[in-house]
């Protein structure tokens, strides 16, 4: 069905990013095709998170450009990215800790809310109906991620693995066309990792969402990705399907150290 890899939807051209004198990314180009699962891997400090933050517009690269569905963005910012259908999760989980799971996921619907402030303040017909429609959508997300039992719990009280799931839920509530996942499996045990893998594959399969994910753990990624970019010291050292990347000598030496 929807899971047929299509045209290039996101194209990064010659992106360079530096913080003062420190070069985080040097001249990196790669593309992402519609409906695929694209992984960015690399050892610690390789520039993976920086790469994701460039796509999302948190960082502005000094050089290079981002082409999203044929539209060029010289200066992306997180709000524009969200409007363009890019949503993301965070490595260190940036949920709204004081709010319940439902409220957190509801915030993901914010861009889709059409009624204005005044109607909302009066809790008037259209505003109320809209709220209920969004709430129904959020319940779907909650069912999908199997977190019905914690929907009213304040997020700050949840264990780490579940917080990660809520973080994914908030991103999904936006109904993104591109989903950026920043180390979705970091700090999880084997069982939680398996669950997360299943959710990622299901999202991709059922909604046709294009997924760009960063991962430190090479094993997991190779199993679920269509294509993989490998970064090391801010440079691209490999790009291709998992098998090609696995047998790339440069990648092997980056992961295992020189001499192998």
């Amino acid at each position, binding site marked *: 069905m929807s899971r047929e890899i299509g045209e290039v939807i996101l194209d990064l051209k010659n992106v360079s990013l530096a913080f003062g004198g420190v070069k985080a990314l040097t001249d990196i180009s790669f593309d992402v095709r519609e409906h695929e699962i694209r992984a960015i891997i690399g050892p610690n400090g390789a520039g993976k998170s920086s790469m994701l933050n460039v796509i*999302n517009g*948190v960082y502005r690269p000094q050089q290079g450009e981002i082409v999203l569905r044929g539209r060029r963005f010289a200066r992306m910012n997180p*709000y524009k990215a*969200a409007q363009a259908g890019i949503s993301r999760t965070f490595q260190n989980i940036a949920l709204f800790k004081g709010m319940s799971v439902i*409220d957190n996921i509801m*915030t993901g619907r914010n861009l889709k*809310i059409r009624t204005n402030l005044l109607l909302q303040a009066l809790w008037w017909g259209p505003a109320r109906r809209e709220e209920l429609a969004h709430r129904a959508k959020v319940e779907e997300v909650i069912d999908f991620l199997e977190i019905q039992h914690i929907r009213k719990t304040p997020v700050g009280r949840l264990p780490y693995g579940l917080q990660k799931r809520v973080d994914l839920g908030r991103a999904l509530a936006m109904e993104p066309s591109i989903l950026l996942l920043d180390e979705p499996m970091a700090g999880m045990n084997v069982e939680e990792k398996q669950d997360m893998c299943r959710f990622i594959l299901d999202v991709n399969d059922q909604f046709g969402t294009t997924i760009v994910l960063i991962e430190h753990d090479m094993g997991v990624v190779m199993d679920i990705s269509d294509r993989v970019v490998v970064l090391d010291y801010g440079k691209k050292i490999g790009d291709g399907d998992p098998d090609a990347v696995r047998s790339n000598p440069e990648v092997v030496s980056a992961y295992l150290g020189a001499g192998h």
Partner: protein
Amino acid sequence: MGFFVETLIGGLMAGMLYSLVALGFVLIFKASGVFNFAQGAMVLFAALAMARFAVWIPGWLGIDNALLGNILAFLAAGGLMFAVAWLIERLVLRHLVNQEGATLLMATLGIAYILEGLGTSIFGSDIYKIDIGMPKDPVMILEGTFEGGLLINKEDFVAALIAAVLVGLLTLFFQKTSTGRALRAVADDHQAAQSIGIPLNRIWVIVWCVAGVVALVAGVIWGSKLGVQFSLATVALRALPVVILGGLTSVPGAILGGLIIGVGEKLSEVYLGPHIGGGIEIWFSYQLALVFLLFRPQGLFGEKIIDRV
């Protein structure tokens, strides 16, 4: 017994006004992580605007009706507070995104001076009065229950009622609407809020507008009670202990904190005053705040400060 209840009610009513000013602090702190030192100046500015507009507008339009004049003046002052909120976001906050809390605090200190200066140079520095037809005479109630009845100040009662309604409406707005939810989201995490498509700038304008309206209502109430004068800016200082007591991030905390301090002030003045000398009302709330800072720095309802290491 009757006297105790009377003092208690007086305290509750005064406390409601503290709650209102404290709410202004909490709203802005929640939404932008800024401790808004200009809240007092906003109260003064709004009250000055209201007092002068109530004279000017009927003059310009030739209106005789005091009620209509007051309503128009209130709307005009509200509009002015919206403009102030918009300008603050445009000229100050927008340029300070992701800066340290101390930087933002200093910026609001600057805003306070500008508002005070601007207010007195536009509206003059005399003492004005706001007359919105608040009933001034005290009334006797429950004469059957208590010996001699309870003496209630009608003006305080109306003021407390207005404050309570406003506080209730704001709480509903924050909890029940999607904009309210977006406001809470921004309060929690700027970056995450932005990445899911919540426009920070708009949210900040909204929140400063709301704080402006709260300041206006507080300004009108205090102004009609005490007259509009420069010391109104220090009313906000009386709300500072309230905020510490209730917790900077909690709306219910601001309300309850205000009530506790209002009651505490009055009761301590009446019952402790004779033993350790008068004037307790002035420092009692700060003392209470100090105790809280020592033993429960997050306040009654504030979010506990836990950092993952």
